[in-house]
């Protein structure tokens, strides 16, 4: 019976399931289960480093303590400050570069590839070599170049007034190319005949930019902004390496940096899970705002 069935082969449904199941199992094991497990742990007092001490249910105490801790709010403020500064700067630079590159010229491919290079590097590597570039004395490239203009070197990663700017500069250097790439994709998808029609009507450059380029490219710009905001909100690697775990003091201590400390230094697993959920809620809320705006822009377009 079995061999007869085998010789008939599998049904379409069975083949579909055979292809889907590995992905489903992987998704459940790697995403869904950890998500639900961490939600469960966020309501418990539990330290992963103390497996012999069972998790104790404490209701919403982890959330309440996090939300009433002024230090945590400080880290959220630091993160928000970083996100706004970094994403706006990257948007301006990235879109500007895309406008410049959206034309035919010699070696365009090479120039575009070179601009994209920072994005392809590991953030830890980027953090490390910017650490040397930003060294506070003349051994740092930036201070060396500025030494003829300034009497004192700048403490890029040691001065509490400057350190956040240093992190923004590094993140901008790394991620403006991403903004440029998405913007360029949007710009190159705009049909040429729209500009030709505008030329026939003797439309100004500003008119063409305002009424053709911007409306047609804005859905993609919003997607780029969405990705960058979500990513910037999770800023960890560069801060960890460049400013030595969020220093000086707590000036560049982002929420993710603090989350890492809670989860993997202090092994305060329950509290860390609660914090991760707070971060998730904020990112989902921000994404929703973007998505709504995106739908609105698409409707207008």
């Amino acid at each position: 019976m079995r061999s007869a069935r085998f010789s008939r082969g599998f049904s379409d449904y069975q083949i579909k399931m055979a292809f889907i199941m590995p992905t489903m199992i992987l998704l459940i094991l790697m995403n869904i289960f950890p998500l639900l497990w961490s939600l469960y742990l966020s309501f418990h007092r539990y330290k992963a480093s103390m497996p012999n001490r069972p998790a104790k249910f404490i209701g919403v105490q982890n959330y309440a303590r996090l939300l009433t801790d002024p230090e945590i709010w400080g880290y959220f403020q630091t993160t928000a400050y970083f996100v706004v500064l970094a994403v706006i700067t990257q948007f301006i630079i990235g879109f500007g570069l895309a406008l410049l590159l959206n034309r035919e010229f010699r070696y365009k491919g090479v120039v575009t590839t070179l601009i994209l290079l920072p994005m392809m590097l590991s953030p830890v590597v980027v953090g490390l070599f910017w650490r040397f570039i930003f060294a506070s004395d003349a051994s740092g490239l930036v201070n060396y170049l500025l030494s003829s203009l300034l009497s004192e070197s700048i403490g890029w990663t040691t001065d509490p007034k400057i350190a956040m700017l240093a992190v923004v500069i590094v993140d901008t250097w790394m991620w403006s190319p991403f903004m440029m790439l998405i913007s360029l994709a949007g710009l190159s998808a705009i049909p040429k005949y729209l500009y030709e029609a505008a030329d026939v009507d003797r439309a100004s450059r500003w008119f063409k930019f305002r009424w053709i380029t911007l409306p047609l490219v804005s859905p993609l710009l919003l997607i780029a902004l969405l990705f960058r905001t979500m990513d910037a909100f999770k800023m960890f690697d560069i801060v960890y390496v460049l400013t030595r775990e969020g220093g000086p003091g707590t000036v560049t201590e982002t929420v993710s940096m603090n989350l890492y400390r809670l989860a993997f230094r202090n092994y305060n697993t329950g509290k860390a899970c609660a914090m991760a959920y707070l971060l998730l809620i904020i990112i989902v809320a921000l994404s929703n705002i973007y998505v709504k705006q995106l739908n609105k822009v698409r409707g207008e377009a």
Partner: protein
Amino acid sequence: MKKLTCYFVMLTLALLIIAIPSTDAQEKLTIAWAQWDPANYLDELSKDFTAETGIEVDLVQISWSHFQDQVFTAFVGKSDRYDIVIGDSQWLGRNSVGGHYIDLTDWINENIDVDSIYATAMEAFAEYPKGSGKYWALPAEVDANGFLYRTDLFEAENEKAAFKEKYGYELAPPKTYAELRDIAEFFTRPPDLYGVAPWYSKEYDGITMGFQQVMWSYGGSYGDPETYKVDGHINSDDVVKALEYYKSLKAFSPPDSPNYYWAETLDAYKAGKVAMAMDYFAFFPGVVSSDQNPNYYDKTGFFVSPAGPKGHAISIGGQGMSISAYSKNQEIAKQYLKWFMQKPVQEKWAQLGGFTPHEEVLQSEVFLNATPFNRAFAASFPYLRDFWAVPEYAELLAACQTGWNQVIIGSKSAKEALDEIARKHEAIFEDAGYYD
């Protein structure tokens, strides 16, 4: 479809073959330690163990920045990846209470001559709770916080005369923190030369290891080890004065000193940026090496961390050897520990450059004369003290690191920061049930 089934079976078989562990007959011991010179010395030393027993020793060196994370993640995952872990003294509480280290009390009492080991080292690296007589490790590398200085500057006649004229006493390696400050001030000639490179970094335990010895030497303490009460101890007037003193050294340190820990102070010294630098003795072999320090390898002296107005205490460094509770080779690991603590092995360990905890070997003329810095290291021993080793050490450490670093960069006054640290420490102890 038959073909597809055939491929599927072949793939499964291939995966199974890969997954089946190799049945290598030779026994193997895996030791985890940080990536630094002493680990290379131990690697070399362990060849003798292999020659004697036929047991292969694989010493896994993990970079300092990932050492703690990697070991703790393995423990949390109950991995049998490491048989022996050579971990920081602060880890004792967490890993013993957490069940990651095996209890070695009975085994040590039966197999090891505890009296031959320096009592300070035994207490810091092996015993938890302190004074309980319960052992979880054996001291492997006993280190201390010390100082190195430029002999070409200290011995120059013009410098000596100018110093005496300004400060009224002879220029010599400082014995007190007041002298250290004077000398640091004297040699501060920006932008090329600064007086001293202390540890100010917020990374891991950087500023804490640098400052705590000043705090103790000024009469301060972290708290009462019996009651775990902190308020009135860590934020006492003595600690405020100590912290203000430690901050005052920043005026005589290079501009990037707020980021300095052991690697950075060493680099600053080798680059000729500072006259004196704080560092662990274990890193000093690189300073006297002409390859690693071509400019000053023969112009370097070493001194014991100075005393303060109310005492003399020095931050302990180094690590102890513990056996992982998840190891499948615990008996071999014990065999290794027993072998390592033998006097002839300790002598060879010291010869290779390791800092032995063996009292007799440590005080022997052979050890004291083996390197230009061993004498200063041995002289530091009576003053060694440690941070809290309770399971909550990481949270306590994080509060100190942030608070003290904020004082150095001027975000908070010493009193504000210390009150904040006291509040946080008491909250951590209360949360962990120490006041119940």
